[in-house]
């Protein structure tokens, strides 16, 4: 336990510079505030429990779930996954650029992340609209209840992610702030949304 905390860089000031030096020397460090990892792990457990409930319910009426699942377009799911992977890649580059002090590159990558996040949002809304048009709503059947629930709770996390990215941009923009710790914390949150989606994709679109 103490290893986490002792390697933890405090926001701003000499501590942070010490943190950067430690990194240069290859000392192990927690990216961002260790506190954010509590959120990641706790929320991951909550999602695991949602997923487990979904799989259990699914095995109770496999035919119904498969028939409804056939109305989803796998290609949309793949597209969503690719878009979020690009955004994750961009935010990882943003962290790396900020770490090296090239803040304009960091800023561009943060905007790129937002752009791809936005593409995801739009494609999700379009997908929902298509499903609803075809007559598949939240209460149509159990599969679609889970489909809308899981995609919507993920959507909500993504919306919060825009606030989080806003914080990162705010930090990067002014030389007076630029807390590397906060930028990394925000990136950690964004990647979390990404890997939640990877699991949701497998469970809603691919699994049989």
């Amino acid at each position, binding site marked *: 336990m103490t290893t986490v905390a002792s390697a933890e860089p405090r926001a701003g000031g000499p501590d942070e510079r010490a943190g950067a030096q430690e990194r240069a020397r290859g000392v192990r460090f927690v990216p961002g505030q260790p506190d954010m990892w509590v959120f990641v792990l706790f929320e991951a457990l909550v999602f*695991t429990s949602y997923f487990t409930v979904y799989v259990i319910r699914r095995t109770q009426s496999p035919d119904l779930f498969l028939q409804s699942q056939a109305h989803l377009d796998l290609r949309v799911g*793949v597209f969503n996954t690719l878009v979020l992977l690009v955004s994750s*890649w961009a935010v990882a580059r943003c962290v*790396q650029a900020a770490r090296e002090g090239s803040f304009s590159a960091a800023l561009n990558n943060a905007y790129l992340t937002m752009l791809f996040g936005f593409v995801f949002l739009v494609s999700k809304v379009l997908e929902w609209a298509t499903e609803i048009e075809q007559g598949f709503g939240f209460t149509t059947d159990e599969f679609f209840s889970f489909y809308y629930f899981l995609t919507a709770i993920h959507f909500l996390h993504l919306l919060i992610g825009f606030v989080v990215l806003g914080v990162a941009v705010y930090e990067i923009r002014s030389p007076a702030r630029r807390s590397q710790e906060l930028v990394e914390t925000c990136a950690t949150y964004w990647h979390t949304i*990404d890997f939640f989606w990877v*699991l949701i994709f497998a469970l809603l679109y691919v699994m049989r």
Partner: protein
Amino acid sequence: MNRRFEKRLSFVWLALSAITLAQLALASLGEQDALTPNAAVTSSAIVIALIKVRVVIREFMEVRYAPVLLCRLTDLWMALTGVSLLGSYFVGMALSTG
């Protein structure tokens, strides 16, 4: 930007995208019987997803460089997720058909 690190990130991204596209191909292979439960497709979907999650956590989230405790905790969560998803799938299927 550090060239090596940047290359590594891009490689990781390419690998993840390739796996995702492979999943698309895999799923369209067995399209004709999309309406029958398939334990192989399900387990490979879950395992592939967890591998992708692990790559994201390790590489993008830089847990590779993090203290061992964090590596262990994230791995523990992935193991827990894998066991509970696969476990509830197989046990549930066995109970509902058997």
